């Protein structure tokens, strides 16, 4: 029994590699900060104290973490089925646009119908967009990476076309000010389609919270999505089949599991998570589709999932970490009057990802060597 304990120790090590990677990345970041002649202690102190030292900071962090939870789940869920869905970006566009369209079209529906309908539209749009690469992979074997990349471009162009089609007319103030060019955007969604900001809830609970903070109910939807992803993957028959296909398609087929069906389903669920980004960006924040409002979130999901080891809990934690870095980075930029550019924080994020990959591999080799029973 003694040996089994040792075994667990390595499993633990495997699980906490991202933590080690983050620590190493912060050290590398410190060196970079020193190289540009700043004080790393001050920078990190400013970064963390502003990001997580008060309620406003936390609100901002969670607001930035919310879409990353969705897109992180997108990558993680598909990965469990052995699929590399890098089409989160496109699925996010389509889902969000569809939700926006529902939101500004069915304006006379009451909130208790319109909000669920918009959420459903967001998920359905993402799911449908992801179904295409899923079906192509299942039926013809075309690699999902190729198709999802291509579908990202189609989605970007399609939503651009649609936003021009549904372009809001400039309001009087803008006309009066002589603004002719504006970033293309749609009309606002109905009041009844908007998700409440957390400020409203805190106010109700008599908790002091700034009214301008953008964190909204979509954060809870993201947490619910993570719980749902976990439940599907590890507690249901569907998850058993999806993971079986991911681990070993041949064994799954042998066990009477339809590989194609599960690939399509996994892609659709994965895409639905991406579509739900719209609940935060439109339903909870801007209330309209605005061109190039949130580009890149889909791709950041890849890094989030990687750091989170493709586990829903890990995704939530790593999305929050990325939220801290994003928001804290912006604050540091202001505090240092631009001497520490926001790009430095992006460097930090990239370094974390690289360290995760490296430490993962190192730990894997260590374990393989240790476990070797010849």
């Amino acid at each position, binding site marked *: 029994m003694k040996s089994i304990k040792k*075994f667990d120790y390595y499993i633990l090590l495997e699980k906490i590699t991202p933590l080690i990677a983050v620590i190493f990345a912060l050290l590398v970041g410190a060196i970079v900060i020193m190289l540009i002649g700043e004080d790393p202690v001050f920078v990190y102190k400013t970064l963390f104290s502003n990001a997580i030292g008060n309620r406003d900071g936390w609100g901002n962090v969670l607001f930035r973490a919310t879409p990353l939870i969705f897109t992180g789940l997108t990558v993680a869920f598909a990965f469990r089925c052995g699929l590399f869905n890098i089409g989160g970006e496109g699925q996010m566009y389509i889902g969000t646009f569809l939700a926006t369209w529902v939101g500004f079209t069915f304006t006379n529906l009451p909130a208790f119908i319109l909000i669920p309908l918009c959420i459903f539209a967001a998920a359905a749009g993402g799911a449908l967009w992801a179904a295409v690469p899923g079906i192509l992979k299942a039926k013809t074997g075309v690699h999902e990476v190729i198709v999802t990349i291509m579908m990202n471009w189609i989605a970007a162009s399609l939503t651009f076309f649609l936003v021009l089609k549904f372009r809001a007319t400039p309001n009087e103030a803008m006309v009066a000010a002589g603004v002719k060019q504006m970033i293309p955007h749609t009309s606002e969604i109905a009041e009844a389609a908007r998700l409440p900001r957390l400020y409203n809830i805190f106010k109700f609970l008599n908790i002091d919270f700034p009214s301008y903070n953008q964190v909204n109910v979509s954060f809870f939807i993201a947490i619910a999505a993570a719980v749902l992803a976990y439940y599907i993957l590890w507690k249901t028959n569907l998850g*058993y089949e999806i993971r079986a296909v991911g*681990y*070993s398609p041949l064994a799954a087929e042998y066990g009477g599991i339809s590989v194609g069906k599960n690939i399509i389903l996994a892609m659709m669920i994965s895409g639905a998570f991406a579509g739900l980004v719209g609940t935060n960006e439109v339903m909870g924040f801007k209330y309209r589709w605005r061109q190039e409002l949130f580009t890149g979130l889909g791709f950041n999901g890849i890094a989030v999932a990687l750091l989170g080891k493709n586990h829903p809990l890990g995704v939530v934690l790593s999305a929050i970490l990325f939220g801290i870095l994003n928001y804290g980075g912006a604050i540091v930029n202001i505090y240092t009057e631009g001497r520490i550019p926001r790009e430095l924080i992006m460097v930090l994020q990239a370094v974390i990802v690289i360290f995760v990959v490296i430490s993962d591999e190192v730990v894997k080799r260590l374990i393989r060597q240790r*476990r070797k029973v*010849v």
Partner: protein
Amino acid sequence: MPEIALEMKNITKRFPLVVANDKVNFTVYKGEIHALVGENGAGKSTLMSILYGLYQADSGQIFINGKKANITNPKVAINLKIGMVHQHFMLVPPLTVAENIILGMEPKKNNIFIDMEKAVKRVEELSKSMGFKIDPKAKIENISVGVQQRVEIIKVLYRGAEILVMDEPTAVLTPQEVEELFDILKSLKKQGKTIIFITHKLNEVKDLSDRVTVMRRGKVVGVKNTKDTNQEEIASMMVGRKVIFDIVKKPLNLGRTAFKVEKLEAFNNKRFPAVRNISFKIKEGEILGFAGVEGNGQTELVEVITGLRPASSGKIFLYDSDITNYSPRNIREDKIAHIPEDRRQRGIISDYTVAENLILGSHYRLPYNKGLSLNFTEINHHAESLIKNYDIRPSDKDNLLKSLSGGNQQKVIVARELFGEPKLLIAAQPTRGLDVGSIEFVHNQILNERDKGKAILLISADLEEIFSLSDRIAVIYEGKIVDILDPQKTNEKEIGLLMTGSSLNRKLPKVK
């Protein structure tokens, strides 16, 4: 006292979970064929890897020809004239025989160009010295496994090896090829080479070796002169208890026809016909064994029967119902159990736990899938009872399958497939790579099903297994059944010939 070629003294090698070699002493005389036997995980491969420099021993010494050697990597081993023929060949398929042999030690013209003529000549010399011919310009991908193995042997000799380590060399060969290999090894011995022969087939030890070292759980349990011992003694030394060799089969008790295949045809992955006009029947309580060199359509046949590959024509019947081209799930529901030949790829999901693997195939059904979610109480209960009944070790249902030994992985498969009383059991290469104890277990399970009146389709490349289990033997060659024979009225030699298709003409006039 004969001259000592190799001496390994007090070799200890620890891995965190296991002591792979525990103060092992291993001595090989010059010019002998020395068999190294033991179950899987007994430490044979570790010991040989240490000799070849792939691992370093934690303690102990190695002496080559009486001189202490410090073998830190395979290059040192090669310089010390130690050669190793791995079980899985290390050849480059698109290159020629000669190119493969000289790889890494190319003879040079003017120090720049490869001297191919010299290489070809040297290869011819070497093969001639062992009494066989080989075409140095043939491509590896176009020659048979048996010939590929000779290329490996020549490669080792080309590098000047005096001590040859052969790691389970017969596992991939037909009986004829095994005989030819033994002739080659004997001629090498005559040339004064020293050969270490790793195996767990005991008849080979008897046929070939001069001495035998038996290992168990990392320790040497005995060194014997082959002529002073017998298979039973070696087997009990290997396993640590008495092993019953002769399988005692109960008399045949045939019921009605359970399974029938009619004029079945199917293609392989390259879209060539792989199953060609195959027809056979299996009755209740009968084992039909398929003998054949691997790659003659056995894999495809099993895949067609189990729904993993479409039949292009022909019919498959389980009792009276036509199950041709049913889905794998439907076929499972009709109670056809399948122990697949490719255990690692097909049979198990190595990243799933024992409990999860034990429900594969019935995971979607009651009682394991209930309502919205899986019923873990039932799944765990199921796992615990099978682990107990089949003595799966370690006995924790939450272990990942990849942490289990091959024998225990196979037990998981057998337990899962036999659960729920199948009507037909398909066992493909059921004991491949297993140790003596596990083989005994699997054989007993198969015979037990037979005696319960189940129909059994056995496929094996191991003729001994085919003979000891089958009630009838079908020989398959190039996708066709060459003949179906009564094991009492034939012998390994005859089957071996049929397997290579070589005596087809002689067999043709015979009416069955």
